[in-house]
């Protein structure tokens, strides 16, 4: 992790705890997003590109769009289901 840095406007070279937490949050969010993207790529490739041709066909790319939407929706359904369990 090389990107924890003090804000350039700060007079001291020390990173405050506030800045540290803020940057950690940003980096975590980035990591979560990357991981999610990687999962969606895998799932939608399996579903939509069953026989890779010389280019991405129209039906494949519309399948991919739907697949991405459904995967996001599925994530919402699952997290709702988990939270409704803690009654």
């Amino acid at each position: 992790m090389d990107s924890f840095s003090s804000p350039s406007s700060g007079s001291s070279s020390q990173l405050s705890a506030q800045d540290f937490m803020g940057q950690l949050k940003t980096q975590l969010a980035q990591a979560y997003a990357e991981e999610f993207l990687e999962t969606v790529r895998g799932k939608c490739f399996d579903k939509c590109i069953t026989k890779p041709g010389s280019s991405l066909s129209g039906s494949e790319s519309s399948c991919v769009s739907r697949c991405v939407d459904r995967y996001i929706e599925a994530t919402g359904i699952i997290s709702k289901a988990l939270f409704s369990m803690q009654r």
Partner: protein
Amino acid sequence: MDPSALNSPELQHFINQEKEKAMVNEMVAKLTTVCWDKCVTGTPGSKFSSSETSCLTNCAHRYMDMSLQIMKRFQNMH
């Protein structure tokens, strides 16, 4: 950052909170991939059918039931 700041209660609280969030996140992500494979069998449509939706909900619930059962089973082993 002053290294001693790592021991500050504020930072510890923050880290614990983020740890918990990461665990929940991981759980949701894991269950989504498992249940997606089980419940979304055809090519994805423009909306989920009601059977797909209830399969996803049931899948999450049953996975948690099963985890509990397995945990109990292992606790009884020694």
